[in-house]
């Protein structure tokens, strides 16, 4: 009789993977550096004749890879780490250049053309949501399966205060492209972005207070419950005791566009658009707005991570009991994580609603929650840059990439199976590379060396 192989028996793709990776790590430093360099040069050279745009993009990122991580230049009393400073600037520059170069840079290998401008806008929105969810899942380690609820609250906040939904009111404040006689509440979309964030953060606290006491998987299922309830409320909300709150399945449309108004437009010599909808290349304006919002989100997310609160989140993720013993108030810290994550979800939702000029209850299914979660997992939990890449790539695939691939392979209904493909990605990623494509070093250590141990019970309970 063989002794049972305990908990680690059976098909173990991870063990094989780990073994191969260890072999790689045991090669001498010089050999590894040379191999990496040769491979990178080969990749770029091979791609150059066919997809030169993509090859140049890769070359730029490969170049960033070779900046030593600890290289720093003195700046006043502080030291400026070159790589950490240059990488975001390069990414931002690439994003700013994108609308101008898109038509001149061939296509993406194996997929098709580079993303359309409207897809690019959606990519920034999803990247924002993924960064927001990353605060909850990646930093604080709370699995939230109902993130779409925050997105919905944000979208509906924008819809209520920038449309004709409440036709009995007639409130105008800084809105653009809406005549003064148009009924309804019309408030400037810029204000609404912030308002949506605040409202959503408040909803996050309301949802979080009773549920955050629960342990990991129970919390996941409760958030999933909220994620199902809120869209249903939106669907049935055309007659809440006789009051039409959400216009039911018909959704609220149109929603006012963003814009800076005539005064700012003239004052800046036309640099800031008067009204986005009136522009010929409005997707470019939306894209830049999305990039700015994403940049703000990333900045806030990184600063939060390094703050006292962020370190408390990471401590809770790693070991709740130890964190509580060190004097971290569990409930308050977790609630803050929820509120912060919700804030960005709300802002993204409001911006998205204004971009689409509509919001429907069917936009907020569980698929979207799982989709955003896939972005975080694919990119690498806890690593903002990885999450942005994950968000952009998956949003692109969902929006047009899968259709392009399907067309290339001659299969018509690939996009129909998008959620199945993302599901398979989730499974394969968890099995082979649980820390994501661009993992944060700390999460990788937890996931692969078993440092992390889910606490048995909530120490505050």
């Amino acid at each position, binding site marked *: 009789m063989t002794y049972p192989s305990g908990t680690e028996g059976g098909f173990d793709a991870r063990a094989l993977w780990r073994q191969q990776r260890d072999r790689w790590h045991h090669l001498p430093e010089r050999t590894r550096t040379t191999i990496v360099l040769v491979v990178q040069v080969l990749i770029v050279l091979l791609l150059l004749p066919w997809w030169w745009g993509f090859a140049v993009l890769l070359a730029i990122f490969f170049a960033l890879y070779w900046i030593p991580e600890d290289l720093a230049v003195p700046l006043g009393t502080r030291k400026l780490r070159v790589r950490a400073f240059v990488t975001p600037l390069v990414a931002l520059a690439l994003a700013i250049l994108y609308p101008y170069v898109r038509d001149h840079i061939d296509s993406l290998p194996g997929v098709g053309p580079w993303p359309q401008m409207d897809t690019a806008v959606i990519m920034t929105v999803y990247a924002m949501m993924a960064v927001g969810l990353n605060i909850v899942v990646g930093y604080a380690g709370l699995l939230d399966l109902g993130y779409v609820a925050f997105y919905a609250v944000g979208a509906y906040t924008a819809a209520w205060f920038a449309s004709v939904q409440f036709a009995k009111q007639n409130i105008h404040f800084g809105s653009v492209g809406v005549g003064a006689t148009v009924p309804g509440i019309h408030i400037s979309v810029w204000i609404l972005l912030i308002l949506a964030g605040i409202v959503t953060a408040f909803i996050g606290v309301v949802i979080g207070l009773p549920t955050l006491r629960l342990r990991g998987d129970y919390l996941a299922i409760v958030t999933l419950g909220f994620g*199902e309830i809120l869209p249903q409320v939106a669907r049935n909300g055309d007659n809440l005791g006789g009051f039409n709150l959400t216009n039911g399945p018909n959704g609220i449309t149109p929603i006012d566009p963003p814009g800076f108004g005539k005064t700012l437009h003239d004052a800046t010599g036309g640099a800031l658009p008067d009204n986005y909808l009136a522009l010929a290349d409005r997707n470019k304006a939306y894209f830049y707005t999305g990039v700015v919002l994403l940049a703000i989100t990333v900045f806030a997310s990184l600063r939060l991570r390094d703050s006292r609160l962020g370190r408390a989140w990471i401590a809770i993720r790693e070991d709740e009991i130890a964190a509580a013993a060190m004097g971290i108030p569990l409930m308050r810290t977790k609630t803050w994580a929820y509120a912060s994550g919700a804030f960005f979800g709300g802002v993204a939702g409001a911006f998205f609603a204004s971009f689409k000029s509509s919001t429907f209850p069917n936009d907020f299914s569980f698929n979207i929650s799982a989709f955003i979660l896939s972005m975080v997992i694919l990119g690498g939990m806890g690593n903002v840059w990885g999450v942005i890449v994950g968000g952009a790539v998956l949003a692109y695939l969902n929006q047009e990439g899968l259709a392009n691939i399907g067309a290339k392979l001659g299969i018509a209904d690939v996009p129909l199976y998008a959620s199945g493909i993302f599901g398979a990605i989730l499974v394969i990623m968890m099995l082979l590379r649980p820390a994501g494509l661009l993992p944060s070093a700390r999460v990788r250590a*937890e996931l692969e060396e078993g440092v992390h141990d889910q606490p048995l019970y909530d120490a505050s309970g």
Partner: protein
Amino acid sequence: MSASASTEALPTRWVPRVGLLPAIGLFLVLLVLVWLGVNLVKEPSAFAATFLDGLTLGLVYGLVALGYSLVYGILELINFAHGDVFMLGSAISFGVATNWFSLHDTNSLGKLIPALIATLAMAMIVCACLNATIEFVAYRPLRSAPRLAPLITAIGMSFFLQNVGLRFIGSAPVSVPNILSHKAVFSIGGHEYRWYQLIVGVSTLPVLFGLVYLVQQTRQGKAMRATAQDQDAAAMMGINVNRTISFTFFIAGALAGVAGLLYAIYTTNIAYDQGFTLGLIAFTAAVLGGIGNLPGAVLGAVLIGLIQQFNEGLSWHAPGSDWTQSIVFSILILILVFRPEGLLGERTPEGG
């Protein structure tokens, strides 16, 4: 909780204090009871008919809920993919019953019974093997990983299976022909209780009793209970933990197969996304009864089935079917907030 534990130790406390949370919980339960009572008085026959419908539906939910409870009991994992295994069970039953046997309620009993048994066996075996395979591929390699890792693969698996169903069923719901007779058994004040409902409801009972026997009385059941308590200790006692876990998934899958067939007969249509919705309802039932507790899962499922039917069938101030999902999830949230151990569960550190 720790605060109340320390205050209980004080000898000076004479009057038992009712906490705010239990008071609110009791108030909510009372509210529901009053609503039910008024409905009973206003329309007793509709109430009775709805009650029977709910009971039948609840028993079918119970089969799915047991699958969640079994797996949760042994691995402490919410097997999200379970609902989709159930959906595939429905799809397979539909395919076998209508495409192979072209069953219909006009068939003679001599054809109907063997064909139904063959369909049932087919659905059970396929679902059982599928569920065990899912465990082997997606959960076993992650058994020592943090708990969220298998939960995420479970969600991924769920979506994957849902798309397999989408491939076979298509995106629109498919209606299933009446396989069992839709003639009335008896009627209560104009509300008929039909044969297919009776047969579906009654046929869940031997499955439930068989499962209880398996878990409580057999050697394999003992191994399952031991593994659920402590995997390492069970392994030291000579129990093959991996095989026991595989067996548990196998049984859970077989239950999902039975439920799939019965559900297809009962609702007379199948959809590729029924697994997600019903899976969540069944999970709520399992939590309501006390997850990991088998009689609790059935009790919870019957309660959820009743609540759903009362909500959709009663006339006095019932929110109606638009709100069913919201009500079920609200129950889930309320249960987790007020009594995380469920109705029959024991208070464990994990529950809070």
